[in-house]
C-alpha cells in the first residue's frame, strides 16, 4: 500500500509529527511505501534545520530527514504556512530579500496542489491533526 501522510501539529506542542513518524516507520517495516509527507499548518516547523533539540528529547527534524532520505519520501513543506512562520528555502529567502533560510533538502517547499495530488495518487491518505 502506498500512503500519503498529512501532518498538521507542531513538533514542539503536539504529538502529530512524532505519531506520523512512528506510523511511517511501522508502515515501511511492513513493506508499505510512504510516497509523500505533507507538512502544513504548525507542522511546517519540523522542516526547520535551525531547531536544536534539548538533551533527552528527540530531534524530530533530524528523524524525518533521515527517514525521508532513506526511503525516498517526498517531504513537502506547505509554502503559505511556511512563509508566514519564518520558514524559507534559499530561493524564497532571495525572493523576499531575507538574510537566511532554514529549509533544505530533503525537505522542499510547495503548495496545496501537492497535498491534493498526493492525496488522490496514493492508495491511502492519513491526517495527523494538531
Amino acid at each position, binding site marked *: 500500500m502506498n500512503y500519503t501522510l*498529512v501532518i498538521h501539529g507542531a513538533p514542539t506542542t503536539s504529538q502529530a509529527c512524532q505519531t506520523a513518524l512512528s506510523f511511517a516507520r511501522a508502515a515501511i517495516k511492513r513493506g508499505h511505501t510512504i510516497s509523500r509527507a505533507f507538512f*502544513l*499548518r504548525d507542522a511546517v516547523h519540523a522542516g526547520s534545520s535551525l531547531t536544536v533539540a534539548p538533551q533527552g528529547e528527540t530531534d524530530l527534524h533530524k528523524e524525518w530527514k533521515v527517514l525521508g532520505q532513506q526511503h525516498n519520501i517526498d517531504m513537502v513543506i506547505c509554502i*503559505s*504556512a511556511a512563509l508566514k512562520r519564518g520558514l524559507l528555502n534559499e530561493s524564497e529567502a532571495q525572493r523576499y530579500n531575507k538574510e537566511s533560510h532554514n529549509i533544505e533538502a530533503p525537505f522542499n517547499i510547495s*503548495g*496545496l*496542489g501537492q*497535498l*491534493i*495530488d498526493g*492525496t*488522490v495518487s496514493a492508495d491511502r*491518505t492519513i*491526517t495527523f*491533526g494538531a
Partner: protein
Amino acid sequence: MKKVCIISTHAPYGSPSVKDGIDTLLVAASYGMDASLLAMGEGVLQLLKHQTPDTLPQKNTGAMLQALEIYGIESVYVCHEDLEERGLTEDDLLLSPQLIQRNQIPQLLKEQDRILNF
C-alpha cells in the same frame, strides 16, 4: 473525477483551521476533483451569515465561502443536529447548504474517495 471531502470541525477565527480547510477545498476543485465540504460540530459556525471579522488580522472566511460556487463546488453539507444544538436554523446560514442527519454522515463519507480533516 475523484470525490474529495473536507471535514471542518472548528469555529472560524479562533484558529486557522477553517481558512486552511477552505483553501484546500478550493485547490481540490481547481485540480478537477469533485470537492465537497462537511461542516460538523463548531465547524457549523463558519457558515453563519453576517460575519464581520473586520478588526481581526485574518480573512473573512464567510466571504471566502461565497466563492465556492465560482469554483464549481456545490456540495456543502452541515450536520443538522450540530446546528440545532447551537440554537441555529437553516435561515442563519450562508450558501443554503444541505442539512444532513448525523446518522447519514457515515454514508456520505463512504461515498468519498478521499477525506481530509481540518
